[in-house]
């Protein structure tokens, strides 16, 4: 068990490291950097008496003149050792503060989405397996297919249109106006929950549909096995029988799917937040990418990716706890 745990942990660290390299490399891709943009803006606004080495000076000030691997090393060291994510050129603040402001909301939405997926998919999956080929089963399968086919951002657009048309208010934002800038309080939290269900449904639908199908297929496999007949012939009530053995068995992939649902949930949260303009990391990273505010973009991408990998790691551990066979491998 410990060996398994340790091996998974090392894989996780390795994955996070690879992600940090990719992130940093990708952020450096665009030609020029923030200083180029800044200087060209200054020249456009009439400041044409800049000293010839002005650009180089600014670059040296921000450490942008050093080779790429030195910059990468510094960046990673600051994050790991001091928890600093660098400086935001656009906001003129620490990137960490901006990230910390937005991250909890992103995290809350993703966590609620996972809960939503589980709570909805479990009973429906079981029901449609037990009542295979019933009308309800066909209905669920059909709705599931549509749920899988409609991408998050289109779903968001359609809901936005419907809410605007028929409910006279656009479902954008996460807070009512009076709470938008207010400090955190119970009332603000309640207001948040009132708005939260919309993005949660949008983000969770595809995952729910996928999980219902998995759950149904798994349970159907189990229900045809001889041990179920044995239990039934012992006179075990149908409900006890169902919950005690096949459902528990079918739950295994349920936990493991969290591993692959998580990346799509994070991605979904990102794109839905951009469409609905939610105060999460989505719009910030989007604008940071467009404006080459590299430390903010890199920080958010790294944190989101790490959280995803961490989630997968936890689901692997849970799976090992649930299924002894995996531990022995």
């Amino acid at each position: 068990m410990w060996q398994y745990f340790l091996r998974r942990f090392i894989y996780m660290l390795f994955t996070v490291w690879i992600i940090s390299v990719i992130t940093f490399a990708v952020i450096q891709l665009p030609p020029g950097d923030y200083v180029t943009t800044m200087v060209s803006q200054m020249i456009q606004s009439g400041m044409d008496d800049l000293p010839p080495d002005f650009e180089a000076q600014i670059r040296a000030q921000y450490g942008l003149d050093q080779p790429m691997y030195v910059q990468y090393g510094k960046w990673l060291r600051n994050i790991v050792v001091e928890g600093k994510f660098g400086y935001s050129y656009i906001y003129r603040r620490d990137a960490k503060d901006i990230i910390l402001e937005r991250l909890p909301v992103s995290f809350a939405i993703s966590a609620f989405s996972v809960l939503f997926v589980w709570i909805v998919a479990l009973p429906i999956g079981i029901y449609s397996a037990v009542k295979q080929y019933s009308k309800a089963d066909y209905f669920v399968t059909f709705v599931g297919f549509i749920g899988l086919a409609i991408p998050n951002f289109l779903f968001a657009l359609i809901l936005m249109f419907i809410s605007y048309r028929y409910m006279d208010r656009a479902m954008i934002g996460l807070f009512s106006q009076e709470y938008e800038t207010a400090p955190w309080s119970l009332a603000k939290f309640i207001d948040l929950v009132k708005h939260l269900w919309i993005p949660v449904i949008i983000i969770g639908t595809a995952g729910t549909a996928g999980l219902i199908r998995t759950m149904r297929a798994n349970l159907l496999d189990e229900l045809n096995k001889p041990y179920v007949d044995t239990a039934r012939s012992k006179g075990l009530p149908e409900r006890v029988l169902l919950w005690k053995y096949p459902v528990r068995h079918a739950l295994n992939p349920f936990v493991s799917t969290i591993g692959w649902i998580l990346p799509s949930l994070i991605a979904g949260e990102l794109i839905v937040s951009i469409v609905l303009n939610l105060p999460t990391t989505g719009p910030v990273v989007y604008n940071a990418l467009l404006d080459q505010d590299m430390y903010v973009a890199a920080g958010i991408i790294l944190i989101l990716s790490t959280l995803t990998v961490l989630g997968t790691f936890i689901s692997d551990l849970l799976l090992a706890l649930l299924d002894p066979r995996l531990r022995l491998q």
Partner: protein
Amino acid sequence: MDVTLHDTTPEYDSPLGGNLPAAETEDELRLEVATQWQLMWWKFRKHKLAMFSAGIIILYYLVAIFAEFFAPWERTQYIADYVYAPPQPIHFFADGKLDLHVKALKFERDPQSFKKIWEIDEENKIDVGFFVKGADYKVGLHWLPIPYINDLYFTTDRHFFGAKDPTQPMYLMGADKSGRDVLSRLIYSTRISLSVGLVGVVISLILGIVLGGLSGLIGGWVDNVVQRMIEIVMSVPDLPIMLAIAASVPLDWSVERVYFIITILIALRSWTGLARVVRSKFLSLREDDFILAARLDGTPQRRLIFRHMLPSFYSHIIASLTLALPGMILGETALSFLGLGLRPPAVSWGVMLQETQRVAVLALYPWLLWPAVAVIIIVLAFNFLGDGLRDAADPY
């Protein structure tokens, strides 16, 4: 009594079911000599939804190939007066006779905001017909960059349908912000949106087969490295990194280069699944009797792979590819929608949807959402088709 006790005609629901009666009717002989592909076709044919979806997909691709013919308007054609003109409903009858037409549009200025208020002009009708004359276009191989071969084309001005008088406005799905016909642009969009998926599939097919094949055939440390690589790629949330790469594409790049980059990007996220299928197939085939027999016969490795192993799971590959296509189409749509993918003058469903990002636009001009409907239909169709193909992939 007329009851026949020995009914000699065997009954079976599925020609592919396991326990066939021993009686040798013509049908069964047919089954026994049928090739693998015939069996698959017979099984696939029974999946009604998949057949229907296949029809829809063929229709989409026909529209994409002959976009100039199907679109009543040219891609960039516009009427400046008709900015955001609403859709004109199509009428089939006039005065009790069959007469295809739309009603003309007229507008009044709002006295305060000076905005146009559109109304249907009941008096003026615009005749609509099939195979009408419109703008000139070329059909053939003129787009190939090969001399002489690209002379093989002809020019025509016939369009599948449209206003009989091409100067008359006909907006079946309304107009966009420059007074262009949404329907025509939707038809042109299918070309890019659908081909992105195909090119992406080819790229991920190559990656998946090469890496999955190496992993499954060689095994050992190669397998280990490839498996770790796949795990990492799968656990990285792809969207942020895709956004980052897409955002770094310089603004002055040509449409073709952007198209190429976007296609590679969306292909990079879907090769892992295919590599896994290929690997597991190779692993299990390696132990199979017929492979062992071929190897003992002295078959060289190359022939073993391409003649014996690969053909036995072509069908699985096709099914996985079909299921990967909708993800690619959606990937392009999402990137372009966010303004990080293809850019005008290229026109794809995502590019068309860009306008709807602002809720005010969406609320006032809901017909701009039509591309979303087109996307959802094709994605559903690919999913159903992939499902049917997967079921048919193993006909025994």
